[in-house]
């Protein structure tokens, strides 16, 4: 006789919890929402892995969201949820966005791949766009940017401008994305200056300004006169400025931190992509796709050249940019040697996307060995 009683209480409990968690998530969303109400606007949701003020990855995605609002005004309504951990929470947040009338949802971190696809199955009418992933469905697209193309441009500039022939490169984690960047940079640098070498220091963090700055100082102390980085804070360029050398910004224009030191910066620019995909939803032409855009689409952008860049270097950098855009230059064009001097790509061949996505070796010109 007690059994039915207890089973009803057991049933109630999860329901309560569910209500509570839904309330919490909707509270979160309402905090994050910057919405303009109009008649039937297209609702676009964004899920961010970091805070919008990180001045790096998430910051650039949010600039894209703001560009979307600017472009479409009342016709679009955007929502964002920031600092969403990559795990069970992500699924709840994505599900909540999908169930509250969002037409298009951008999930902007690799770790959202499985939650995005899971929720997409339950909401076939909602369109999803997952950044940097590889799992797609009829209503799930993936998108990423070929930042290595930008590295080929700055590698060329570094090769031409270095006097010590030592370039300092600050790495975050030895994953293919970062290794690809180091290699693209080095190949381009050696084309214009076969004597130059790249020294890599890993700081094991995307974001530790103190350590990134120390790494930059270390490299400068060892003779590097140009600093480049694949970490997110402006600290390395700040250190370069302080020590009187130059370098390249990452993700955002950081000239505010290093007015003389910044030669240019590779800028993540999602604006046009977000506008195009929203337009496609409005027009009913949205289809699932996989894009890996580069300089040609504007997804990989550049800050203006700094005052320290001579005209011939600007001209050479522009030639590389144009060549990459028109397809006459590929950053991974053979012959490419590995560190042992063995040819890994023959003349006339290029490295395909499948190999690039898993790149796990250094090319000739990089000092030290790749941590495994």
């Amino acid at each position, binding site marked *: 006789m007690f059994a039915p009683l207890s089973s009803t209480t057991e049933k109630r409990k999860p329901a309560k919890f569910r209500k509570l968690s839904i309330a919490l998530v909707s509270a979160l969303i309402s905090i994050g929402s910057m919405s303009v109400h109009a008649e039937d606007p297209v609702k676009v949701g964004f899920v961010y892995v970091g805070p919008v*003020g*990180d001045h790096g990855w998430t910051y650039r995605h949010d600039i894209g969201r703001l560009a979307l609002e600017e472009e479409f005004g009342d016709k679009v309504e955007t929502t964002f949820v920031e600092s969403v951990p990559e795990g069970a929470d992500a699924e709840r947040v994505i599900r909540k966005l999908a169930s509250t009338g969002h037409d298009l949802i951008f999930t902007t971190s690799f770790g959202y791949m499985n939650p995005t696809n899971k929720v997409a199955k339950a909401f076939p009418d909602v369109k999803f766009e997952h950044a940097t992933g590889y799992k797609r469905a009829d209503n799930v697209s993936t998108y990423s940017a070929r930042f290595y193309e930008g590295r080929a441009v700055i590698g060329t500039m570094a090769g031409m401008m270095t006097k010590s022939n030592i370039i300092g490169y600050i790495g975050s984690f030895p994953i293919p994305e970062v290794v690809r960047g180091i290699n693209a940079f080095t190949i381009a640098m050696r084309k214009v200056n076969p004597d130059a070498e790249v020294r*890599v220091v*890993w700081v*094991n*963090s995307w974001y530790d300004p103190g*350590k990134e700055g120390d790494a930059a100082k*270390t490299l400068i*102390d060892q003779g590097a006169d140009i600093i480049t980085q694949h970490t997110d804070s402006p*600290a390395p360029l700040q250190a370069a400025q302080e020590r009187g050398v130059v370098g390249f910004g990452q993700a955002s224009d950081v000239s505010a931190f290093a007015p003389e030191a910044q030669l240019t910066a590779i800028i993540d620019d999602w604006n046009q992509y977000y506008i195009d995909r929203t337009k496609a939803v409005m027009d009913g032409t949205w289809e699932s796709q996989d894009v890996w855009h580069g300089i040609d689409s504007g997804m990989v952008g550049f800050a203006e050249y700094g005052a320290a860049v001579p005209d011939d270097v600007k001209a050479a950098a522009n030639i590389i940019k144009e060549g990459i855009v028109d397809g006459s230059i590929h950053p991974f064009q053979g012959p490419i040697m590995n560190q042992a001097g063995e040819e890994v790509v023959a003349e006339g061949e290029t490295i395909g996307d499948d190999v690039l996505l898993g790149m796990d070796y250094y090319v000739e010109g990089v000092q030290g060995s790749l941590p495994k």
Partner: protein
Amino acid sequence: MSMDSNMMVMIGLTVISAATPLVFAAIGELVAEKSGVLNLGVEGMMLAGAVSGFAVAHVSGSAFLGVLAGVFAGILMALVFAFLTLSLRASQVATGLALTIFGVGLSALLGQPLIGIAYEGLPSYSIPLLANLPIVGPLLFEHNLLVYGSILLVLTVSLFLKYTRAGLVLRAVGDSPDSAHALGYPVIRVRYLATLFGGACAGLAGCYLSMAYAPMWVESMSAGRGWIALALVVFATWQPGRLLFGAYLFGGITILQLHAQAIGINVPSQLMSMLPYIATIVVLVIISRDRGRIRKNAPASIGQAFHPTK
């Protein structure tokens, strides 16, 4: 100056700048622990100091006011901790951890409008004549005031604990609060003051981070240095001199590791990040085998709440 000695000076300067925040945070914690208070909230207090110092320096344009604000923020955070643990007798361990989590969140919230703003950094002061010496001059006598201050602070704390009556009282409160209480010393008040001093020092450490080390504000910019400072106090077996040595050792290891990488010697940097903690565990094991040494330096009542009515 030859290339080599120039490089040595530069490496030395980088080590000094990496060690200074550790010196500040650890010396404050050392004083708090000497009075019997274990405050695990150093990381949180540092971040509060970092964001406040940066904000005030940016708005007012005065580095001095910035540092003052950072110190004040550290003291405020420590006051919250002291009230909960000393007046309300909450668990020091749990409260300290909560203080760190609180500090991370609060500083992120307050710091939102400060992201992306540049700050020129604290000015350096050359000490006349001494700064002109070869090698030693640029290495030791051309720093911002906080670096000189950190060394002076360690010296002062060392003398205070060893040679002053107040220092003796503080140590007595940490070793045997009941006896100190019986002798008429205000145990709770002494612990309050020691805890607030710890907060002020953590605030200074934070200021150094956001105003000198990497002059900018970004979330969680202390990146675990508060925890290294905590480990450092134990590593130093609660002695200011060893603490200074330890801070420079830890700072030096980090920088040398970066140099090793840059010249192509492959040292797993994860291992290097663990080193301060491994060193601390080793020291703990060594001193635990020697009871006399523990009794001499470790505050006997550390982490325990004091009940004056008992």
